[in-house]
C-alpha cells in the first residue's frame, strides 16, 4: 500500500514510519552527538509537532480504517483512527515534541548505551505508542504494546552498569508482562467465541454480563499494571528514576496515558454498554491510588521518585473520573457521564504536559549538579533561572492551582462528583460525596508535595558547596521546557475551547454529550443554567491587573528604596545551609498523620550517645505484605522443582523414559 496523504490516518502512519526511519538513522553514526542529538532529535520533534497537528485537525473527522498486509500470512494488521485515537495521538505528539527538543540537548557522552542505539530505542518507543493508539485488532495491539514495553525497558536500563538500575528494569519488565498477560486474556474473553480478534468482531460480539465483567476486570488489571494503580504501582518509583529524564517524561507523561486509552477503549467501545458497578471498582481503586501516591510522594527524598509517586496520584485521579463516567453511563445519566469523561481526557492532557515539564526540569537539574537527592540541592533559582521559573509553572499546575491547567481538570472532576447525588443507587449516593472529599484531600496534599519539591530544589540556600558551579540549561533544553510550560498555560487559560474539542471525542466514543453551551467564548460553563462556571483567562487577567496596579501604586506613592542585608532570622547570625528544613523534615508531618500507610523503621539516638545518629527508613507496606511473600512463594516452588535437576544425564534419560511409559499407559 502506498502512503497517500489524503487521509489523516495515512498521514499519521507516515509520521510513525518517519520516526522509525529517524531511529534507524541513529545507527549510521551512533557515537556522533552532533548528528544524533543536534540533527535527528530536532527532526523527530518536528514529526511530533506534525503528528499533533494532524491529530488535532482530524479530531472531528469520521472514523477511518486501513488494512496493512504485513506480518504473518492471513493475519493482516487492522488499523483504525477515530476521535479517541486522535485525541491520544495529539497528546503523544504535543508532549513528545517538547520532550524530543529537550532530549536533543540532554543526551551527552557517558551514558551506558551509545547515542545512536538510544535514538533507535527512543523512536521505536514513540512509534509503538502511536501504533497502540491506532491498532484495530488484538494481534496488532499486543505487538505494539509489547514493543512499547520492551523498547522502554531498554531505555530504562540505559545505565545498565549499575545493579540497582538492572533491578528496576527487571521489576518493570515483570509487571509489564503480568499486565500484558491479563490484557491478552481480556481480548480472549472479548472475542466471545467467534475467534475473530479484530476489534470490530469484539464490538459486535454480545457478551453475557458475567463474561463482560470478567473482560472488564482483566482489562482493568492489565492496563492498571501499566498505569501504576495500587497495588501494581511498585515499578513506577523504581523505573522512573532509573531512566534518563526525557525517557521518564515520556513514560510518565505519555505511556501511562496509553493505559488510560486502553481502559477507555475496552470499557466504552469494545464492551459497548458498561455496567454501573464496574465504575465503582475503578473509582475505589483510583481514589486509593490517588491518596496512596500523594502520601508517598510527600515522604520521598529523591526528586524523580517523588515525581513518580505523584504520577501514581494523578493516574489515580484519572481512574477516579473514569469510574465516575462508567457509573453515570451505567445509570443512564448522559450529561454527567460526558462531564466525567471530559475530566478524564482533560486531566490526561494536563498530566502529559505538567509531568513531562517537571521530569525534564529535574533532568536539567541532574545534569547541572549531578544530584538527584533532595538533601544535596537547594537555591538553584539563582544559578538556573530559566529552569527554575519554567519549572515553577509546572509545579503550580501540578499543585492544582488556578489559573493553570491542573486546576481545570480537578474542577471538572469535582463538578462531576457534586452532581452525583442524583444517581439512583442509594448506597453509591452516600459514598460518592466522600469520594469528592478524598479528591479534595489528594489535591490539597499535592500542593504540599509540590511546595516541598520546588522549595527544596530551587529555593533556600545551596546545601552543597558544589552547587555554586551549577549552570543553566542549554538553548535546546530551554526550548523544550518552554514548549511544555506553554502547553500548561494554554490548557489553563482556554478551558472552554479545550472542552469544546473534547466534547467531539466524548460524543463519538460514548454517544453522550454535554448540553450545548450558552456561555461566551471565554467562560467555561459545562452544565448551562448558572450552575457553575469558571474562566481561567479572565481570572488570570483580574489577578494580574490587581498585582500590576498594586505595584504601580506602590511605586507612585512611595519610594522604591531597597537595602540588602543578611537574613533577619530573629536575630540569629550564624545561619548555615544545614539549618534549613530537609526533604525528610518536610515529610515529617505526613509521616506522623498518615502513619498507618508506611512501614517505618526509626533509629533514635539516646541522649548520651557520643556519635548520635538519627535514621528513619520509610518503606512501602504493600511491597512488604504482598510482593515479598509472593516472591518468596515463587522462590520456594522453584526450589522444590529444582530437585528434579540432578545434573546427571542418566537421570534425565530416566525422566524421558518414565514420561514415555506414562503417556503410553494413558493412550492405551
Amino acid at each position, binding site marked *: 500500500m502506498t502512503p497517500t496523504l489524503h487521509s489523516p490516518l495515512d498521514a499519521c502512519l507516515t509520521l510513525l514510519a518517519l520516526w522509525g526511519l529517524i531511529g534507524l538513522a541513529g545507527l549510521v553514526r551512533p557515537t556522533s552527538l552532533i548528528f544524533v542529538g543536534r540533527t535527528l532529535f530536532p527532526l523527530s520533534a518536528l514529526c511530533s509537532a506534525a503528528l499533533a497537528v494532524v491529530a488535532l485537525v482530524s479530531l472531528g473527522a469520521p472514523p477511518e480504517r486501513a488494512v496493512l498486509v504485513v506480518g504473518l500470512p492471513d493475519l493482516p494488521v487492522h488499523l483504525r483512527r477515530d476521535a479517541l485515537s486522535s485525541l491520544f495521538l495529539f497528546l503523544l505528539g504535543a508532549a513528545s515534541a517538547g520532550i524530543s527538543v529537550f532530549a536533543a540537548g540532554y543526551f551527552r557522552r557517558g551514558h551506558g548505551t551509545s547515542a545512536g542505539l538510544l535514538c533507535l530505542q527512543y523512536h521505536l518507543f514513540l512509534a509503538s505508542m502511536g501504533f497502540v493508539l491506532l491498532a484495530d485488532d488484538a494481534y496488532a495491539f499486543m505487538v505494539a504494546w509489547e514493543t512499547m514495553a520492551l523498547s522502554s525497558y531498554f531505555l530504562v536500563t540505559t545505565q545498565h552498569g549499575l545493579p540497582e538500575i538492572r533491578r528496576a528494569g527487571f521489576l518493570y519488565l515483570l509487571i509489564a508482562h503480568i499486565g500484558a498477560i491479563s490484557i491478552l486474556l481480556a481480548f480472549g474473553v472479548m472475542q466471545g467465541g467467534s475467534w475473530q480478534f479484530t476489534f470490530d468482531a469484539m464490538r459486535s460480539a454480545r457478551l453475557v454480563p458475567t463474561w463482560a465483567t470478567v473482560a472488564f476486570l482483566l482489562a482493568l488489571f492489565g492496563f492498571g499494571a501499566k498505569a501504576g494503580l495500587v497495588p501494581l504501582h511498585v515499578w513506577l518509583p523504581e523505573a522512573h528514576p532509573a531512566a534518563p529524564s526525557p525517557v521518564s517524561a515520556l513514560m510518565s507523561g505519555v505511556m501511562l496515558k496509553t493505559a488510560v486509552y486502553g481502559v477507555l477503549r475496552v470499557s466504552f467501545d469494545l464492551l459497548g454498554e458498561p455496567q454501573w458497578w464496574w465504575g465503582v471498582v475503578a473509582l475505589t481503586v483510583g481514589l486509593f491510588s490517588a491518596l496512596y501516591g500523594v502520601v508517598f510522594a510527600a515522604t520521598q527524598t529523591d526528586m524523580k521518585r517523588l515525581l513518580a509517586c505523584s504520577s501514581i496520584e494523578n493516574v489515580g485521579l484519572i481512574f477516579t473520573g473514569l469510574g465516575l463516567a462508567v457509573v453515570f453511563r451505567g445509570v443512564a445519566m448522559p450529561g454527567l457521564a460526558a462531564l466525567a469523561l471530559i475530566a478524564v481526557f482533560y486531566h490526561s492532557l494536563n498530566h502529559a504536559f505538567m509531568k513531562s515539564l517537571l521530569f525534564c526540569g529535574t533532568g536539567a537539574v541532574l545534569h547541572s549538579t549531578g544530584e538527584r537527592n533532595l538533601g544535596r540541592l537547594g537555591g538553584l533559582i539563582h544559578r538556573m533561572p530559566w529552569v527554575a521559573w519554567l519549572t515553577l509553572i509546572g509545579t503550580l499546575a501540578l499543585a492544582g*492551582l488556578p489559573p493553570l491547567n491542573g*486546576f481545570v481538570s480537578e474542577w471538572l472532576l469535582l463538578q462531576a462528583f457534586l452532581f452525583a447525588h442524583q444517581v439512583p443507587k442509594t448506597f453509591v449516593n452516600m459514598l460518592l460525596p466522600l469520594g469528592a*472529599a478524598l479528591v479534595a*484531600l489528594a489535591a*490539597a496534599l499535592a500542593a504540599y508535595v509540590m511546595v516541598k519539591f520546588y522549595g527544596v530544589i530551587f529555593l533556600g540556600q545551596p546545601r552543597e558547596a558544589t552547587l555554586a558551579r551549577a549552570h543553566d540549561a542549554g538553548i535546546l533544553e530551554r526550548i523544550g521546557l518552554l514548549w511544555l510550560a506553554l502547553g500548561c498555560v494554554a490548557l489553563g487559560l482556554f478551558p472552554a475551547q479545550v472542552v469544546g474539542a473534547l466534547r467531539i471525542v466524548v460524543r463519538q466514543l460514548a454517544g453522550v454529550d454535554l448540553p450545548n453551551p450558552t456561555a461566551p467564548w471565554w467562560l467555561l460553563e459545562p452544565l448551562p443554567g448558572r450552575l457553575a462556571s469558571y474562566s481561567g483567562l479572565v481570572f488570570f487577567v483580574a489577578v494580574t491587573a490587581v498585582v500590576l496596579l498594586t505595584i504601580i501604586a506602590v511605586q507612585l506613592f512611595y519610594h522604591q528604596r531597597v*537595602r540588602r542585608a543578611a*537574613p533577619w532570622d530573629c536575630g*540569629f547570625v550564624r545561619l548555615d545551609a544545614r539549618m534549613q528544613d530537609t526533604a525528610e523534615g518536610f515529610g515529617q508531618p505526613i509521616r506522623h498523620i498518615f502513619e498507618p500507610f508506611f512501614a517505618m523503621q526509626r533509629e533514635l539516638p539516646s541522649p548520651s550517645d557520643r556519635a548520635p545518629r538519627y535514621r528513619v527508613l520509610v518503606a512501602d507496606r504493600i511491597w512488604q505484605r504482598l510482593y515479598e511473600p509472593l516472591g518468596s512463594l515463587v522462590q520456594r516452588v522453584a526450589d522444590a522443582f529444582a530437585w528434579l535437576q540432578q545434573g546427571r544425564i542418566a537421570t534425565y534419560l530416566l525422566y524421558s523414559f518414565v514420561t514415555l511409559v506414562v503417556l503410553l499407559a494413558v493412550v492405551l
Partner: protein
Amino acid sequence: MRPIEIFTQLLELIAALAAAPLFAGWINQCRAWLQNKSAPSLWLPYRGIRKLFHKDAVIAERASALFRLTPYIVFGAMVVAAGIIPSMDTRLPLSPVADAIALVGLLATARVFMSLAAMDIGTAFGTLGARREMMVGFLAEPALLMVIFVASLISATTALPAITEHLATQTLGLYPSLAFTAVAFLMVLLAENARIPIDNPATHLELTMIHEALLLEYSARHLALMEWAAALKLFNYACIGFALFIPWGVSTRQSAPVALLASIPLLAVKLAAAGVILALIETVSAKLRVFRAPEFLATAFLFAVLGLLVHLLLGA
C-alpha cells in the same frame, strides 16, 4: 454588564480593602476588653500599614525575585477573592469567572506562594513555617470544600452569589445540615487565619508560630502588603461565612437598588458581631500543640461530612 453591576463590584472591592484592617482592629479591641486590658486604637492597623509603607525595605541578600513578587501576588489574590464573595450584593460581574471551588483554589494559590517565599531565604524559621502552613492548609482545604459542597448541594450550584440568593430566599429558617457545616467552617476559619487554637497572632514565640514565621524576613512595603492581605483574608473568610450561613439582607437582582443602602450597614453589624465572637473564642481557648492541629481539623472535616450526610439522608 449594567452600571449597577459595575458599581456594586467596585463598592465590594473598595469596602473590603478599606474595612479589612478595621475588622482586624475591632477584633483586637474586643479581645483587649475581654481580657481586661486597655484596648489599642481601632485605627492601629491602618497606622501600622502606613508606617510600614514609609520604611526602607530590607531584603535578605539571598532573596530571589519570587520573594519580592509574592506580597503582590498574595495581595492580588485576596483582592480578587473579595471581588467574588457576595458580601453586600449578589450582582457581581466578576463572580461567573470563579465559583466557590475556584475561590478555594485562589486562597490555596496565595498560601502556596507565601510558603515558597518563606522557603526562599533558607532560614530555619521560614522553612518550618512553610511546612506547618502547608500542613494546616492541606487539612483545612478539604474541610472547606466539604462545607461548600453542602451549600452547593442544597442550592444545586457552585456559584457563590447563586448559593446566597437561594439560601436567602428559603422558607426553612435553618438547615440542620448547615448547622453542622457552620461549626466546621468556623473551625476552618480559625485555622486558616492563624488564630487560636491553631496559631497565635499575638506572639512571636518561635516554636509555636506558623503565620508569623512566614513573614519573618519581610519588611516595609512588602510586610505592609502581607499584613493587609492577612486582614483581607480574615475579612473574606468572614464574608464567605455570612454568604453561606447568614445570607439575609444581601441585596439581589430582585431587590430594588435602594436595598443596597440597607445592606451596607447590615454587613457592618454582621462584621461587628463576628468580631465579638472571634475575640470571645480567642479569649476562652488556649493554643493547641502543633500536632493536635490535625485532630482539630479532622473534627472540622467530620462535622462537614456529617452535614453532608444529614443533607443526603434527610434532604434538609
